[in-house]
């Protein structure tokens, strides 16, 4: 079905943990070098003391009130095993900092600039490493094939994985949806590839998470790349009208389409 099955079924054993991540990445890299696609690796996080220090200052000023000094948690959850991806995701989508721990994190304009975010990520990562439980790293999402004429198995693989694992909540077009209890599923169409990849690994609640045993780095990268591509490609059919499918289409057809024709009828016919 997918390009992967052309290789025949392979059974991989995966274990959680940083070593496994690197190991998996190496295996995946080896395989993908074969097929000619680019590998999916995690971005290195700064370990420089200056960055960590700057991050600590920012953290203490904006985050510690809920997440506790040193990330041990208080009103908010502890951050000792979340990993760089989580921190980067929540900060770069503006979900954090949160005004009150009772609020639901919502996508927002980011409070910090990218350099500040990187610093905070460095600080939390240092805490995680010290604690011995670093969580998912920030995936380096490789762009899909730029050559227009050649085949692009990555994009296709991302499409299939997205439709099977993500579309039921986020809509096949990525426009978003609804969960129970009023949790709104956000649109993915403004997200960066990195943010999508981070969310898949992190599983910002109420979203489930997808570990390396469920989706490999290469698969996560493919999904992120596919959705980014989809959101930034002009809709071939014209105006996308919210990309939500039959609902906006029905509105346009009935109210606009018939409405214009009723107006035409009024101009052609009699009013009295």
């Amino acid at each position: 079905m997918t390009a992967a099955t052309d290789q025949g079924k392979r059974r991989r054993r995966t274990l959680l943990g940083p070593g496994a991540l690197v190991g998996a990445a190496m295996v995946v890299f080896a395989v993908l070098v074969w097929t000619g696609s680019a590998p999916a690796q995690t971005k290195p996080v700064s370990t420089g003391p200056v960055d960590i220090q700057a991050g600590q200052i920012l953290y203490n000023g904006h985050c510690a009130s809920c997440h506790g000094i040193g990330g041990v948690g208080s009103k908010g959850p502890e951050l000792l095993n979340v990993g760089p991806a989580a921190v980067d995701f929540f900060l770069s989508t503006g979900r954090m900092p949160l005004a009150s721990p009772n609020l639901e994190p919502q996508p927002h304009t980011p409070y910090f600039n990218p350099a500040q975010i990187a610093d905070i990520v460095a600080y939390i990562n240092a805490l995680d490493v010290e604690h011995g439980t670093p969580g998912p790293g920030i995936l380096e999402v490789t762009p899909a094939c730029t050559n227009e004429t050649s085949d692009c198995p990555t994009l296709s693989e991302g499409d299939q994985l997205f439709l099977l694992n993500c579309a039921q909540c986020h809509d096949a077009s990525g426009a978003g949806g609804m969960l129970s209890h009023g949790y709104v599923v956000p649109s993915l169409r403004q997200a960066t590839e990195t943010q999508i990849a981070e969310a898949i690994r992190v599983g910002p609640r109420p979203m489930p998470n997808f570990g390396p045993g469920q989706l490999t780095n290469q698969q996560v990268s493919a999904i992120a790349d596919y959705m980014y591509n989809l959101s930034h490609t002009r809709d071939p059919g014209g105006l996308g009208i919210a990309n939500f499918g039959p609902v906006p289409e029905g509105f346009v057809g009935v109210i606009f389409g018939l409405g214009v024709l009723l107006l035409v009828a009024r101009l052609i016919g009699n009013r009295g």
Partner: protein
Amino acid sequence: MAENPMVEDRTAEGPVAETGTAAEQLPRVFTGTHDNLDGADGHTPWPDDVPAGQDDTWYPLRDDPWKARRMEYIIAAFWGITAVCGIGLMIVYWTGGQAQYEGALLLLAFASLGTGLVLWARYLLPGHDITASRGHHVSDPEERAAIVESLSRGTEAILSRRGFLVKKVLVPVGGIFGIAALWPLASLGTRPGDALYHTKWYPGARLVTEDGNALHVDDVMVDGLLTVFPEGYIDDASSGAVVLNIGGAPIQARRGQADFEVVSGANGIVAFSKICTHAGCAVSLFNVLTMQLICPCHQSTFNILQDCSPVFGPASRPLPQLPLLVDAEGYLIARSDFIEPVGPGFWNRSGD
């Protein structure tokens, strides 16, 4: 008051009441036939209904040749736009086609064609506001009597002897032959048999992803889910299942299903049929905060920790649970098929 014999005036006193409501409450009943709808002879419409000497050749600009010619030029200009758009369409097509240009040019072409036509009809062509008689769309009384004669010529003969041939012979024969003629329609499909009672899950079937990779018991993270199929039957329509890791959360299973879950360390692995028990869509929206599975089609919501029972929406039966085991190499396998039919209900569906 009108001496119209057709109208049975139910009002107590002369004219009917003032408001429409009251009038509605005291309806007039039309009791007559068609015959005296019109004039005394019942055939011709009222002469007064059709004004005499209507001018059938009149149009608004008939008496103003200068304006008429100007209107002609305006119409010609609109139709010129149509022609230009036509050429544009040919060019767009020739250079490979582009949906938005095609749409815009078609819109403009048709709209200007239509505008020209409307102006033409409205200002330069006759036939406005003519009054004519509706005439009679029903037949004369003589014809209505005559047709009964023609019809009964046949029906009397056909139904002679109390309709022996028709009622006692032809109808049963027709029924029998009709059934015989329609019988082949059954070949359109297969009989359901026990197709609705089983999926492709078999004892010992490994849970595999759509890629064909078997799932190890540690593969799914806590608060994670994955779509799986029985090994060898990937993408089978009735066999799709979601496997979830609920961690240490206690699950309240139905009687006899408590051991369907696989507990391994911090992992609590459960698997449910992905086919909604309401109308068959794939259920896999996972709300981690409320531990619910939701179907996107009609918003049926299933409480995972309570045997995947429906708690909201039109579904009325829980998602069937797949009994799981771990094999010697640590891979997740099914102990057997689901113990009840998956998917929507049907007449013979026994069990819960």
